[in-house]
């Protein structure tokens, strides 16, 4: 029992760490493009930082407008492809049913967060070759790491937009970007969820929202917005196996858009997506320590699902509804029980998704954005036959409002207020549910 309590504490800390991580996770908006092309942030962002059709097309085209002014030598001499993004916020977080030496406790704490900074460097190197490099961190711990770094080759075959190739560390083409959520206090549960083994661990660290190192093959049609993306990558946070790609993984995404000339719905989209991320489960060792790159017996974390988006009202000031639903599975070989050696009884499977609403009221200058989201996960097969069927089921909701004081061709600054609540079944002290509540008030600015 004591051991179970200890492991639950670790799990609670992990949940808290995830919460704190997403507090400072970046939302990419790149004012350098606004400076280069003299367009306001609103040209590319439905509600900052969520991309609209124009922004998505601009990104797919390798940050080019293709009117003879993309190349660095044709841009104004003062242009420098660097932007800074910082989100100073006050945050209050309360986590219930935590295990302490003093017994089960609810712990709440607030502070102005130790925010980091994103340096967003992106642009066009030469015609049809673009880049993105994003060092992020710079918080009080002094750590900086490269969140993204890639080169992107567009129109690889003549003037066709159907084959573009990206190489480097990048976000796969998710139904809704994990790096561009409107919410700052939490993230899409679907992307990072793994079925739980009480007191155990998981050899798969796969998180759909994490950037991956690999190759992306992307195609799109600028007129009807049909898109596909196929990604071949080595999954993040893997010790690596003896394969050409050390943690070989594959992601695919297809989207079809529909536009309506009249009626309340102006645009809609349906799509399918799926991923198989393979992690090694057996390693050669040295002194008992696994040797990186020596792994074998690959086991898969699999996710696949569908999506649908509807834009009600004009696309320029829409009520945007987004539904993403998926099925997830982690092979039992990835799921270790509390002893760290024995694997689970069976594959862990679950269903989950989110429903998100974004509303840009049709007011002058489009200052306001309101959003809400409900995330959920329901386990289908618990990895341990003895576990409660609803163990680690998750319900999460988020509500927020953004008021953009100013957006120009140079910068953007917005007030951001948000509340969220996450409830996970049975992961708290002695199998109690655990709830994490957040309040966040802050300023989100980039220049």
């Amino acid at each position, binding site marked *: 029992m004591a051991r179970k309590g200890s492991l639950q504490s670790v799990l609670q800390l992990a949940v808290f760490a995830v919460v704190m991580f997403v507090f400072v996770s970046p939302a990419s908006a790149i004012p350098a493009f606004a400076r280069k*092309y*003299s*367009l*306001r942030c*609103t*040209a590319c962002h439905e509600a900052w930082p969520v991309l609209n*059709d*124009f922004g998505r*097309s601009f990104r797919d085209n390798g940050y080019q*407008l*293709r*009117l*003879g*002014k993309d190349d660095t030598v044709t841009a*104004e001499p003062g242009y420098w492809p660097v932007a800074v993004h910082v989100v100073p916020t006050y945050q209050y977080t309360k986590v219930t049913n935590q295990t302490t030496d003093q017994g089960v406790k609810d712990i709440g704490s607030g502070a102005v967060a130790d925010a980091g900074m994103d340096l967003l460097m992106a642009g066009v190197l030469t015609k049809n070759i673009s880049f993105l490099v994003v060092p992020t961190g710079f918080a009080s711990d002094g750590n900086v790491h490269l969140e993204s770094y890639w080169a992107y080759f567009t129109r690889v075959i003549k003037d066709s937009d159907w084959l573009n190739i990206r190489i480097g560390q990048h976000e796969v083409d998710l139904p809704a970007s994990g790096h561009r959520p409107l919410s700052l206090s939490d993230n899409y549960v679907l992307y990072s969820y793994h079925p739980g083994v009480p007191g155990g661990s998981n050899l798969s660290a796969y998180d759909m929202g994490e950037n991956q190192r690999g190759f992306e093959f992307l195609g799109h049609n*600028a*007129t009807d*917005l049909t898109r596909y993306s196929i990604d071949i990558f080595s999954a993040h946070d893997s010790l690596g196996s003896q394969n050409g790609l050390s943690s070989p993984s594959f992601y695919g995404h297809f989207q*079809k858009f*529909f*536009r*309506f*000339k*009249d*009626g309340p*719905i*102006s*645009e*809609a989209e*349906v799509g*399918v997506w799926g991923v198989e991320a393979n992690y090694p489960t057996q390693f050669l060792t040295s002194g008992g320590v696994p040797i990186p790159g020596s792994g074998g017996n690959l086991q898969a974390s699999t996710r696949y*699902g*569908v999506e*649908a988006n509807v834009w009600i009202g*004009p*696309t*320029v*000031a829409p009520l945007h509804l987004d539904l993403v*639903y*998926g*099925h997830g599975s982690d092979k039992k070989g990835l799921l270790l029980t509390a002893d760290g050696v024995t694997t689970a009884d069976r594959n862990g499977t679950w*269903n989950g998704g989110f429903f998100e609403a974004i509303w840009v009221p*049709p007011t*002058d*200058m*489009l200052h306001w954005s309101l959003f809400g989201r409900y995330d959920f996960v*329901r386990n289908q097969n618990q990895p341990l036959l003895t576990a409660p069927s609803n163990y680690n089921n998750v319900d999460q909701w988020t509500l927020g409002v953004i008021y953009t004081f100013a957006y*120009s*061709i140079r910068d953007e600054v917005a007030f951001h207020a948000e509340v969220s609540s996450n409830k996970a079944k049975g992961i708290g002290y002695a199998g109690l549910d655990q709830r994490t509540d957040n309040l966040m008030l802050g300023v989100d600015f980039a220049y």
Partner: protein
Amino acid sequence: MFYHVARLIPAFAGLLLMMGSATAADVGDVATGKLVYERYCMSCHGEQGNGEGEAAEYMSIKPRDYRQGTFKWRSTPSGSLPLDSDLEHTLLNGLYATYMPTWKVLDERSRRDVIAYIKTFSPRFTTEKPQDPIVIPPDPGYSDASVKRGGAVYQKYNCSQCHGAGGQGDGPSAHELKDDWGNAIVPYDLTKGHVKCGDQSTDIYRVFMAGLSGTPMPTFADSLSPTDAWDLVHFIQSLSPGYAKNFAGTVASTGDHQ
């Protein structure tokens, strides 16, 4: 549960396709067009449509002042208001080598709405009607002989005074030109393989006959014969391999090529 949801996708897609077949309204909504304008256009063209947006002072080619109702790209004769389809042409294609990008990614409804709003900046749209589009005869086809004749037309009409002997926009008057608002403007470098108002041969022909209102590029509709105009088109096309050339000739095109 997953499979139940998955089965709904084809039905949902079918429903969307049916909804997409709805008939389009012809007239844009001015109120929504204002929002479109604020989101995409205002940084250059200004809140008042006067071409004095926040970005304008940094631009070597100034954004258009909408208040006069003069537009570069028109299918209508010089001096006339443009058709809505002309304004949409500019939205769809942009203006190459300027800061005006292509907005073809925008949905048709947004384009329609913003055109309706842009027209509110000039009272001319309430008091005048656009003239009929100019008629563009068939392209007789690109040939060496036509290029040679076009070179002579280029000299005869003194195009080199602005565009230079080699078409590179470096003629003797190149640095003295101003637009209707007094802003310095340079002649287009025709050797780039793109023309500001469209790369089709009919686009180039149209520029000769309709002119580029608001710029020093005049109309030659009263002096240039259609045969000479086509030869001149072919001469310009010979200046760069970037131009798509039609060696076989084309069927006639009217001004409305949407």
